[in-house]
Structures are given as structure tokens and as C-alpha cells.
């Protein structure tokens, strides 16, 4: 092992390129966060440290509404997608290969493959038709509600919830469940007392990924939302066409912080397995 010399692995220019890549990856994000603390109106000249823009964003009614809407949608989407993904993972792993299994994999992973803009357009058309029909039937509340966005988000979150759960299931030791069955546990007891607790880290990891993916979505939300249903990302996209103030940096930084915290937790959860 000591002979795995680092000189051998060194290729000219590689290390410096890598370091430059890391600098280039983080410099824009760090700059963005730094200017969220800028005291001046400008997003490019530094006027001293201030929390003013956070206060403004916090008091901005549109930001408040969009944040709340984003959180509601992401929570529902994460719960729904994680639930169906867990059940599907139980159905497609650790059993004899069956006819149609590949079809199910392709279906579940389909949102990862189809360009978002295509799904967005498809949902806009389909949901549009259904909404018009519902409104014509006098069911206005059914026609305009957050449930359309929740349904769309739940669908594209499924693969993100499914993959970590499936990975966890495949890495799990079968002997514990066999032991439980040997001790006359019913299948339900075995599932509830043995499988589910063992699977929990995978489920939590999947739910967190689904939550982050839903929270970050722009394109599908932009096309599916009805008037006045801006989420935080679509609100930000709208603002970016207007006069920019560091308020947008403050909103971005807060969203960034939520993402980083959830991801760190995700990595800690999935690493404990080893």
C-alpha cells in the first residue's frame, strides 16, 4: 500500500486545474452571499456590513407568501413521493426478477431523463384542460389549488426518494428478517419491527432529497402554477427580470442555507451505513 506513490499519480497541470475549478465553483456563490450583507443599494459596490436586506426580505409580503407556499408544496410532495417510493422499493428489490421489472424501473426513473421543459409543457396542457373542465362544472376550488403543483412535484420527486431507499434495501442484511420469521413473527410484525427500523435512514435520506428537489424546482412550477401561486424560486425568477437589489441575494442565501443544512444531514445519514 505504501507503494501507491503519489508521484506516479501526478499528471502535469492536473492539481492546479482542480484547484482553479474549486475556486471557480465557489467564488460566485461566496460573492452572492457576501453581497446579501451589503449596506448599500447596489449589488456590486460594497457599502459596509448590514442585515437590512434580510430584514426587508423577511417583511416582504410576497416573499413570505412564496416561502410558505414552497414549504407546503415541498412537505406534501416529499411525504407523498417518499411513501409511494418506499412501497415501490419494497416491491422491486430483494425478490425474484419478474416480468415488467425493467418497465417499472424505467417508469420510476423517467423524470430524471425527460427534459424538464417538456414535462412542464405537457403538464401545462393536461392540467389546463382538466382545470377548464372543472371550472365549467362549477368546481372552482378544485380547479385552482395548490394540489396541482403538489401532484406535479410529487411525481418528479419519486426517483429521488426511490434511489436512496432502494440502495439501503439492497445493502440490508436478510438474516435479521429470517430470524424474526423463525421466531414466529408475522410478516407484518417482521416488517414493522425489523425491516422498517433498518430502512429508516434510507427513507429519511430519500425524503430529504425529495424535499430539496421540490424546494428548488423552477421550470415545472413556472408552467403549472395558476396566477398568484408563486413559489420562492419562481418569485426569484420573476424578480431577476427587474431592478435587482441585494434583497434577492438575501433570499438566495437563506434558500442556500436550508439546502446546505439538509444535504449535510443527508450525507451524515447515508454514510453511517459503512
Amino acid at each position, binding site marked *: 500500500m505504501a507503494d501507491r506513490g503519489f508521484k*506516479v*499519480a501526478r*499528471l502535469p497541470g492536473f492539481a492546479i486545474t482542480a484547484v482553479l*475549478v474549486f475556486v471557480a465553483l465557489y467564488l460566485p456563490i461566496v*460573492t452572492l452571499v457576501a453581497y446579501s450583507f451589503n449596506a448599500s443599494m447596489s449589488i456590486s459596490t460594497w457599502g459596509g456590513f448590514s442585515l437590512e436586506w434580510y430584514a426587508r426580505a423577511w417583511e416582504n409580503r410576497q416573499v413570505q407568501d412564496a416561502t410558505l407556499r414552497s414549504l407546503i408544496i415541498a412537505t406534501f410532495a416529499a411525504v407523498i413521493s417518499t411513501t409511494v417510493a418506499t412501497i415501490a422499493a419494497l*416491491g422491486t428489490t430483494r425478490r*425474484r426478477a419478474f416480468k415488467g421489472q425493467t418497465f417499472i424501473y424505467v417508469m420510476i426513473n423517467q423524470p430524471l431523463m425527460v427534459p424538464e421543459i417538456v414535462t412542464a409543457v405537457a403538464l401545462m396542457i393536461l392540467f389546463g384542460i382538466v382545470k377548464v373542465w372543472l371550472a365549467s362544472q362549477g368546481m372552482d376550488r378544485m380547479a385552482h389549488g395548490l394540489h396541482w403543483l403538489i401532484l406535479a412535484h410529487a411525481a418528479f420527486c419519486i426517483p429521488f426518494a426511490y434511489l436512496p431507499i432502494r440502495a439501503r434495501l439492497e445493502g440490508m442484511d436478510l438474516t435479521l428478517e429470517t430470524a424474526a420469521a423463525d421466531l414466529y413473527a408475522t410478516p407484518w410484525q417482521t416488517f414493522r419491527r425489523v425491516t422498517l427500523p433498518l430502512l429508516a435512514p434510507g427513507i429519511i435520506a430519500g425524503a430529504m432529497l425529495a424535499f430539496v428537489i421540490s424546494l428548488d424546482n423552477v421550470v415545472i412550477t413556472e408552467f403549472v402554477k395558476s396566477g398568484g401561486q408563486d413559489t420562492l424560486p419562481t418569485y426569484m425568477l420573476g424578480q431577476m427580470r427587474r431592478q435587482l437589489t441585494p434583497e434577492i441575494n438575501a433570499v438566495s442565501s437563506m434558500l442556500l442555507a436550508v439546502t446546505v443544512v439538509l444535504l449535510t444531514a443527508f450525507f451524515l445519514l447515508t454514510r453511517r451505513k459503512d
Partner: protein
Amino acid sequence: MSPAEAEAVRRSARDGWLLSLPALVILTLAAVGPLAIVLVYSFLTPGQHGNVVWDFSTGGWVGILWTKDIFTGEWVLADGHLTILWRSVWLSLLTTLFALVIGFPTAWFIATRPPRERALWLFLITIPFWTNLLIRTYAINEVLRREGLMNSLLLGLGITDAPIEVLYTPTAIFIGMTYVHLPLMVLPLFAAIDRFDLRLLEAAYDLYASRWQVLRRVILPIVKPGLIAGSILVFVPSLGAYVTPRILGGGKQMMIGNFIELQFLQGKNWPLGAALSMVLLLMVTVALLVYVRHAGRRSQAHG
């Protein structure tokens, strides 16, 4: 197969399908199924104010490449459409190529760190990957702006006399797409290099191979699967990009994604937008099929 075994197979299939059903229903309603509607709409007639009239027409598909001259009524090649399609393809290819050129050394660097350090470097690559695309694009927008970081640096160091106007050009989209998609190149490359036995390098050097020969004859063949996976993972979202060209192209430099949006949200021509969506889907599917076939061959070769 014994009857009991056949029964077990049947039960396994039934349970598998039943358990997957809730997920399949949601996906059919809100992901896969709606795609069929787009196909139908691509063969309808555009309505007066957006939407469609339910009359069969191939106009949407023809309109991708040809347009009717409003004065002479003749069909002529739609230069504007071709420009957008061509821009989407070459910008995506350029992004993939450049991501490969800078992503490979980065993945190599991470894979050759001591194991303890490696997890940290990997985490540093993963964070931007999961960060909101909009925020990352906005961050790049800030750097490239007239008064942004890039121009401040260039002017401050005396490299240029006047600020460079990069924003709203194809260059800006190229920089932005490389920035947002780079982790998708680095991660599969890292996975491939990580499996690479560094003793092969020693063997190559012992046999008097030059550095260039080692890279071309030893390293490249072994990391090829990761290289192809990374290229596909960058190319596919680049081709379908919407947010990045919208912000960095400023509506002047459209890509297919923005062109599709234009047909729908400005209510111009829904069947054309639907046909363009199908073309985009087709191109992505072809790219993915090429990859799956290649990956399938690889895994078979390895048993």
C-alpha cells in the same frame, strides 16, 4: 420448474406490481402520461390566441424547419429556427467538451487524495450540484455583469481598459452551463478513476511509457465508462436547458427550451411548441439509448 417454484415466481411478480402501483399511478398522471398529449397537440392547428383548434395538421412539424413567406405565400427555410436549433446543439457539445477538459483533472485530483481528505473534496463538488440551479445561474450572472467581479478584476489588474460585455451572448450561456453542469461530469469520472488500480501506472512507467502515452494508452481506456456517463449527464440537461439561457442569454440568445416556452407562454403557436418538445425529447432519448447500449456492453463484458 416445479409447480411450487412457478407459484413463487407468480406471487413475486404480483406483489412487485401491486407495491409499485401507487408510484406508477402518480407518474402516469403527472409525468409520463401527459407526454402523449404533447404528441397529439403537435398534430393540431394553432388557435387564434394560443391554444389549439382540434383539426388535424402537420403544420407544427413542418414549421420547425419551414415558414410561409407572408408576402409571396411560398414555403421558405426558417433561418431563425435553424439558428436556435443549431445554437442549442453546438453550445451543448462545447459545454460537454469543456466540462470534460476541466472535469477530468478535477476528478483525478480528488481520486488521488488520501482517503480521509477525499470525502471532503467530494462533498465540496456535491454541494453546488444540489444547490438551486437558479441561484447558481444568478451567481454567475453577477460575476459576468458589466460591473461584476470579472470586469472589476480585469480592469483592476489592467488587463483590459474597458469592461467586457459578456452577458447576453452565447459565451455567457456556455460559461453558465459549464458552471452549473460541471459536477455531473466530475462525479462519474471520479467513480471510474476511483476503481482504477494506480499500480498500473507504475507498471507503465517501468516499461518506459511517457506521461502522454500513459494518459492515452492506460488511463483513458479504463476511465472511458465514466467519461461517457459524464458526457451524457452534461449533454442531456444542456440540450434541454431553460433557466440558464433565459437569464444569461437575456431573451436574445435562445436555446430550444426557451424557444418552446415562447410558443406556449406568448401564445404564439402551440402545435409548433409541441412538435419542438417532441424533437427535444427524441434527441435526448437517442443520446440516452446510445449510453445504455454502451453501458450494457460494458457490464456484460465484466460479467
